[in-house]
């Protein structure tokens, strides 16, 4: 039996910045909820259920969803928190989809909320709490803490990305200039979107190449910021979606695929992965989501893409793994302008995670921006009509990839069946 068709009714954002010192966590989240309800022309009484997510331990608050029950309008309503690290945004989007598609009596409209206020917390403690259990095993087999910190100091989020970048550059022949070009496009796009963090309309490739290396080959100018911000979305049934928006966006495929924990093996053992930019999880995720949505030729059928790319090499890598460009050619498409907002296949017109990174919200913002592009309501709207778009996210203990395929057409139904 197939589930119900799910549609997106609207999306809302809070303003993002490196330090939102004017608000605390509940107030920050409330901004996004209020914006979402306003954009969908409804109030909290239309909401039947709430899905919430953020990164655990980044702000040092467990159960933030219960702290801010009133601010998110969850009083006397079902409330669910999902958290999967960097993919939290993608996972709560999928959880919202599941909630609607399941067809539970009385639950039609689900409010999905993701947030992060990184200025409140200690990101390195948050990341350490992810990796500490694995890393501590090494001390039992003879390694000193100093040696550990050398390897894993380089192996935090940016270290993982630089391993990927080294292998991507070796594979494809992309240069540092190509990486900088991706960043420039993202930051220019961010300047045209109202809620983003790093707005840099005049950034040039030379300026980026002048900044020092953070972790070879990634420079200071290329890395993602740490932002405060929140995002909220409305998932509902296809019948009710017409009350919220003129152009409902239909969710036609979702997938969440995990691969091997690619940082280190379990308890000091080896990992079964040799090339950090191989990313089989993304390939499998794309297969699954595209097959649900009936997409056979992703590079031709998809009109708009939001990928989760804190670092520029990842943007190139994901576009290839998700089947949108041929292997090792993504950097060439940035050179010829295919991925610009007025190009053939626009990518990350909101500036992407490279310009704004409120971790728990980042994945949901990818989905939200893709949906807004289909609705025609995005700040940096692409000139061509967008029929099909995807929102991707990556994270977990760097091994989880989620994908959502959205379209302005409903999924084709099976003949017979049921």
């Amino acid at each position, binding site marked *: 039996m197939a589930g119900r068709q799910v549609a997106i009714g609207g999306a809302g954002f809070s303003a993002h910045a490196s330090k939102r010192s004017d608000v605390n966590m509940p107030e920050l989240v409330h901004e996004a909820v209020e914006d979402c309800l306003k954009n969908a022309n409804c109030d909290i009484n239309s909401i039947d259920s709430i899905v919430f997510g953020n990164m655990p331990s980044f702000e*040092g608050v467990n159960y933030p969803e219960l702290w801010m029950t009133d601010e998110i309008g969850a009083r006397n309503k079902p409330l669910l928190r999902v958290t999967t690290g960097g993919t939290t945004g993608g996972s709560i989007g999928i959880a919202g989809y599941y909630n609607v598609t399941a067809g539970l009596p009385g639950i039609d409209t689900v409010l999905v909320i993701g947030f992060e206020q990184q200025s409140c917390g200690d990101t390195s403690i948050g990341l350490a709490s992810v990796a500490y259990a694995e890393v501590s095993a090494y001390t039992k087999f003879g390694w000193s803490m100093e040696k550990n910190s050398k390897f894993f100091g380089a192996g935090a989020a940016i270290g993982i990305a630089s391993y990927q970048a080294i292998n991507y550059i070796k594979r494809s022949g992309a240069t540092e200039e190509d990486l900088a070009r991706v960043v420039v496009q993202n930051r220019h796009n961010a300047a045209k979107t109202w809620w983003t963090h790093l707005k840099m309309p005049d950034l040039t490739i030379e300026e980026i190449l002048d900044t020092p290396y953070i972790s070879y080959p990634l420079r200071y100018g290329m890395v993602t910021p740490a932002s405060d911000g929140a995002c909220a979305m409305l998932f509902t049934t296809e019948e009710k979606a017409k009350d919220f928006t003129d152009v409902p966006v239909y969710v036609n495929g979702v997938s969440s695929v995990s691969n091997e924990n690619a940082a280190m093996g379990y308890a000091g053992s080896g990992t079964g992965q040799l090339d950090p930019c191989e990313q089989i999880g993304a390939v499998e995720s794309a297969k699954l989501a595209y097959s649900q949505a009936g997409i056979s030729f992703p590079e031709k059928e998809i009109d708009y893409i939001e990928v989760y790319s804190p670092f520029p090499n990842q943007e190139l890598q994901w576009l290839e793994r998700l089947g949108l460009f041929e292997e090792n050619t993504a950097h060439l498409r940035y050179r010829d302008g295919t991925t610009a907002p007025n190009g053939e296949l626009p990518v990350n017109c909101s500036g992407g995670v490279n310009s704004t990174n409120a971790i728990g919200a980042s994945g949901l913002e990818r989905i939200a921006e893709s949906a807004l592009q289909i609705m025609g309501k995005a700040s940096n709207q692409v000139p061509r009509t967008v029929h099909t778009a995807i929102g991707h996210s990556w994270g977990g203990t760097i091994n989880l990839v989620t994908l959502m395929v959205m379209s302005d057409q409903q999924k084709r139904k099976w003949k017979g069946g049921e």
Partner: protein
Amino acid sequence: MGKLEYIKKEYERTRKTKGKWYLSSYKYKFNTTHMKFFLEMLKEKQLVGLKCRGCNTVYFPPKLVCGKCLIQPDKWVSLRETGVVATFTATYDKNPETGELTPVPVSQIRPDGADTMYPFDLNPDIKFDEVYAGMPVKLRWRDETKGDLNDIVCYDRIEDPTEKMDLYKMEE
């Protein structure tokens, strides 16, 4: 005008209190039985990996469960002392007197015969600029092995027969 706008007008900044979260107060558990034979062989200056019967993946160091097949790898195979740099990045050493930063390579090495990579030191004489993915290296043992991971002191660079071939250069 938001419903909570009055809060922002009244307080331009939120008030703060500080708290700390000590990770060292938690207990993390892990199994060590699968490493026992591996560490014994290190003492005898031999490298061994654990092979999965389902997919023939050789795990180095050994792994308790093969994620592809969900079975316990149980066949020991010996590995060579040579290997390649699978991937690498840099950390920076700061000279305390001059404040100068020197990049130090941090590498993941795949021993020949294994299908996995592992972080090991390169010879400290190797400059960061010289390292590349795919660089062949050879293991250097500690003089008196004790049966722990420190028995592998570092990896030395060896001659690369493919260095002069333009295999990896792509035409634009």
